[in-house]
Every structure is written in structure tokens, then in C-alpha cells.
């Protein structure tokens, strides 16, 4: 029961991220025009931007997971004291 949501997490996360990635691909398809302020176009074209995104996603999910576990520990203490 308790670990149910954990087992579902990867599929849920994938379902959440997939439409985002797809829309991002569409946004990236636009070609940069000349004479405009310089942006990190090369980083995007080479696809290395996804490395950055994945690193940030891993860190954010790690911190969130930590907070979730902390939340659960506190809940357990509350239950023990409540009895």
C-alpha cells in the first residue's frame, strides 16, 4: 500500500515529461535568424542542453524525494504520539 505510489512514480513522471519534451522539440525547430542577439543555439542543436535538463531534473527530484521522505517520517511520529 505504502510503496504503491513509488512504483508508479517512473511511469507517472514519464507521462508528465513526455508532452513537455515534445512541445520543446517544436519550439527548438525554429531556426535562429541573423542579426539577432546571440543565444545558445549551438548548445540546443547539439542536443547537449538535454544533459543540463536531465541533471537539473535529477537534482530537483532528489531534493523533492528527500522532502517527501521527511514528510512521511514526521507523519509517522505524529501517528505514534497521537495514540
Amino acid at each position, binding site marked *: 500500500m505504502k510503496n504503491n505510489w513509488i512504483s508508479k512514480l517512473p511511469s507517472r513522471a514519464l507521462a508528465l515529461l513526455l508532452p513537455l519534451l515534445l512541445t*520543446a522539440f517544436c*519550439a527548438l525547430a525554429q531556426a535562429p535568424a541573423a542579426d539577432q542577439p546571440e*543565444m*545558445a543555439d549551438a548548445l540546443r542543436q547539439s542536443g547537449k542542453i538535454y544533459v543540463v535538463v536531465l541533471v537539473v531534473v535529477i537534482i530537483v527530484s532528489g531534493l523533492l524525494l528527500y522532502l517527501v521522505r521527511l514528510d*512521511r517520517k514526521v507523519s509517522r*511520529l505524529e501517528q505514534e*504520539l497521537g495514540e
Partner: protein
Amino acid sequence: MKWWKYIAIGLLLYTAVMGFLGQVPRLAILNETERNLYFHVPMWFGMTIILGASVYFSIRYLRSPSPRLDVLAHESAKTGVLLGVLGLLTGSLWARYTWGTWWTTDVKLNCAAITMLIYLAYLVLRGSVQDEQQRARLSAIYNVFAFAVAIPLLFIVPRVASASLHPGMGGNPGFSKYDLDSHMRLVFYPAVIGWTLLAVWITEVSCRYAFIKEKMYEKQLDKQVA
């Protein structure tokens, strides 16, 4: 876990992905750093909201004192200070690479720094009073004062002042009209909600921890008496 915590997780992951992959306008000087908008600005939004919650609990404490309200006000203020410090640090770093300096005597920057000092004084004040009821009452009163000073310092003084480098000054709010386009809004608003929910979540957990600690002290006292 409560439902809004799932929303916080979803919005933060959305921000982490779309913050880098979303479309942004091509702006000179800012270039790609404008993506900081999704991370730096929500710190200040979150801070203002959580400090607002803190002063709300303080006013409620003054109307009907209870240790619970004191803990809520205190933990909210602590989270607010954390977000404010993160906002100052990220702002300083961003300034270094767009304005060319870590810090400048800009109204917006100095007022934000003063706000943080006022709230640090709140924490110092709490630490310096031994008696619990006195500490709660003093800090509740101080909190009302702090919030009443912080809001004009953050939102009124910089706009009235004539010159500021920071966007959103001189009667021209935020990144709004010229810079923040519809693509950025799609990420910016979820980012603000997500980071704010995260701040509320952290505050909630630390409050519950404080309540548990209180309860355990009481139980130990009961044992000692019996």
C-alpha cells in the same frame, strides 16, 4: 500526502524542464540568462507570500495567544528568510553577468537587503528572549512591524525612486509588457506557484516537527511530575 504536494512536484519538474527548453525571446545583454526569471523571481514571490502568512499568524496570535500560532509564524518567517537569501544570492550572481557587478547601490537591491536584515533581526529577537510567552508576544508585535516596513521597501520605494537598473522599476512593473512574452508566461506562472508551494511544504513539515517536539516535552514533563 496532501494533494497540493503532488501539484508542487509536478510544477517544479515542469519548471526544471521547460525552464531550459521553452522558447524565450532573443534579448540583448540578457541572452539565455533571462531563464533565471523562472528561478530568481519566484523566490521573491514565494518570500512575500510566506511572510504574509507569517504576519497573518502573528496577528492571530496577538488576538488569541496560543503556542501553535507562534510556531506557525516563526517557521513561516524562517522559510521566508531562506527564500529571500536565495533571491539575494541569485540576484547578485545574475547582476554580475548582466550589469557587470555583484552589487550596486541600486534602490531595489538595497531595499531588498534591508528587508532581509529586518527579518534577520526578527530571528535574533526570538533567540534573545528566554520566557516563551514573552518571546511569542514580542516577536508577534515585531513581525507586524517588519512586514509593514518590508512591503513598502520592496514594492513602493524602488518604484518611486527615479533610477534603478532592476526590471520592474520606474512605474514599469516587472518583465511584463516588453520582455515577458506569452511563451515565458507559460513557464513563469507555474514556476511561481510551484516554488511557493514548495516553500509552504517546507514550512508545513518544520511546523509539524516543532509541534511533535513540543508534545514530547510535555509528555516528559508529565512523567517527571508523576
